[in-house]
């Protein structure tokens, strides 16, 4: 985790070439902050401004207390002086340099022996030793990804910026690399800002999250907070209405996993890699509410819950529940009246097995 003081604090506006104004408000604490939102919402522009590649119109960017950009004082450090590790969506490996040449690119000023040692260590860490003399064009997407990460980290930057780091890969590889990327990011101990529009990536890779839409920041918080308790309907639509719970896989049998969440056991389809720590995701619209457990419902997961709040949302009603963990259900007005939902009421919640989504952490 980053030492105290190594924090990025940014609040600025930037006029994009397309004419839209983008508001970038990002703060890093410990770990990975995800910039999350639909494509074209300005996430990449915010990241470029943090790196010093695009110049904001107003506001400030400060790192570790020192200003990187300050419109009022006319400060604008170039990218070279900000000491960030930037990983663009396209990776931008130098095609005329081999893997070792790419990784060692930033170490030109070091004595040869130290440079070689640093490059070797980076190649080892990202399992690239056997590829040291290969050219980037001959590598697979996943290998290029690792080279780009090694190149950015070898010079020991103070802040890591990643733009859709897994988007260039195909889906199976993405699923495989997600936990590895999370592990690498945590190991660096650096504050990280990561741009993604992918729901699973945000969950797997992020600690904190900044939700953006149309150039504006809608909500900031921890991933679990924002996904489980979206501030308004717009955020809810972007993140999906979902409860994100921390769970532990205690058994896997015949492709089904038993997960324990705050004392409640749930059955879910087991994720491909057998990590024990998982996020359990439950979409509010998949949670069924029952007065009694013996109602004619086939859902395998049933557990008692207490109603915390009832909020009408158009034709639907959002019901906050306490089942030992916080849970949200979305039901029709008719169902809410039928069940006579009132805060403090005790009832049962049910979820079908395929609706319990496990994301490894």
């Amino acid at each position: 985790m980053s030492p105290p003081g190594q924090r990025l604090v940014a609040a600025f506006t930037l006029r994009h070439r397309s004419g839209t104004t983008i508001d970038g408000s990002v703060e890093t604490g410990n770990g990975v902050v995800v910039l999350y939102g639909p494509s074209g919402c300005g996430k990449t522009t915010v990241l470029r401004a943090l790196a010093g590649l695009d110049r904001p119109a107003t506001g400030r960017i400060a790192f570790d207390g020192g200003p990187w950009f300050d419109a009022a004082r006319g400060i604008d450090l170039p990218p070279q002086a900000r000491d960030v590790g930037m990983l663009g969506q396209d990776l931008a490996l130098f095609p005329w340099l081999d893997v070792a040449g790419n990784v060692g690119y930033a170490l030109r000023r070091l004595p040869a022996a130290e440079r070689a040692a640093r490059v070797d260590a980076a190649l080892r860490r990202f399992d690239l030793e056997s590829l040291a003399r290969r050219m980037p064009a001959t590598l697979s997407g996943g290998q290029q990804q690792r080279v780009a990460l090694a190149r950015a980290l070898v010079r020991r930057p103070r802040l890591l910026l990643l733009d859709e780091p897994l988007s260039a890969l195909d889906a199976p590889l993405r699923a495989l690399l997600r936990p590895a990327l999370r592990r690498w990011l945590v190991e660096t101990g650096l504050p990280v800002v990561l741009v993604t529009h992918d729901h699973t990536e945000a969950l797997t890779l992020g600690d904190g999250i900044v939700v953006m839409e149309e150039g504006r920041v809608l909500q900031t918080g921890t991933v679990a907070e924002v996904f489980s308790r979206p501030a308004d309907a717009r955020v809810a639509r972007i993140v999906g209405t979902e409860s994100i719970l921390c769970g532990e896989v205690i058994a896997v049998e015949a492709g089904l996993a038993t997960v324990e969440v705050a004392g409640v056991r749930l059955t879910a389809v087991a994720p491909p890699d057998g990590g024990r720590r998982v996020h359990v995701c439950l979409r509010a619209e998949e949670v069924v509410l029952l007065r009694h457990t013996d109602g004619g419902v086939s859902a395998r997961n049933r557990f008692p819950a207490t109603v915390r709040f009832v909020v009408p949302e158009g034709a639907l009603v959002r019901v906050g529940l306490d089942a030992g963990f916080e849970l949200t259900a979305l039901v029709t007005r008719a169902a809410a009246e039928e069940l006579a939902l009132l805060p403090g009421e005790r009832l049962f919640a049910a979820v079908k097995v395929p609706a319990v989504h496990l994301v490894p952490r």
Partner: protein
Amino acid sequence: MDVTAAWLTFRLAATTTFLLAAVGLPLAWWLAAPHGRGTGLRGLVEAVCTLPLVLPPTVAGFFLLVATAPQSVVGRLWGRLTGATLPFTFSGILLAAVLMNLPYAIGPFTAAFAALDRRLVEASWCLGESRTATILRVVLPACWPGIVTGLVMTFAHVVGEFGVVLMVGGNIPGITRTLSVALYDDVQALDHASAARTASVLVAVALVALVTVQRLGRRPVEKGSGR
């Protein structure tokens, strides 16, 4: 073949190529700016640099002769700086060659810079390399085929330059008589044997240049990061 004319032609071509590299590379970098190509001042400058391609050399030569005359602004300035005149001197045909060959240098340079993946440049900046170091370590390795193409085309074209050299420089042995002017002289004097030798040399230079450029073009491109 006129050895003096051959040596003069080589000096003219080499100096022109050098000057166009010095002026043309920064100019082409500016012209190829990511979001400004072909607009405003850039568009105008690019058009002016391309003008010699469509202008008859005698027309350009006539205007140059007038513009560099001793009484003209350029002529007086040059006279005050060097005490010499421009028309019918080596400096005069050098200036003409530089101007006439702008498109052969600027064209390939600008195309190479415009095709450069700017994300590579930004990646280098973010890796801590200065703008100058980035030009040496990213722009040159990525763009050298285009740069060499521009240099070779310029050299080859200056070797064959005729109309503008004759208009501005006349035909003074050892000072302004290039190979192509000597060839014209030979034909006028009905010395077809000498003319044939000179013409062969000019064909050879042109062929070598084109083969070089072709090879650069066929070079396997290691582009893209595998997307």
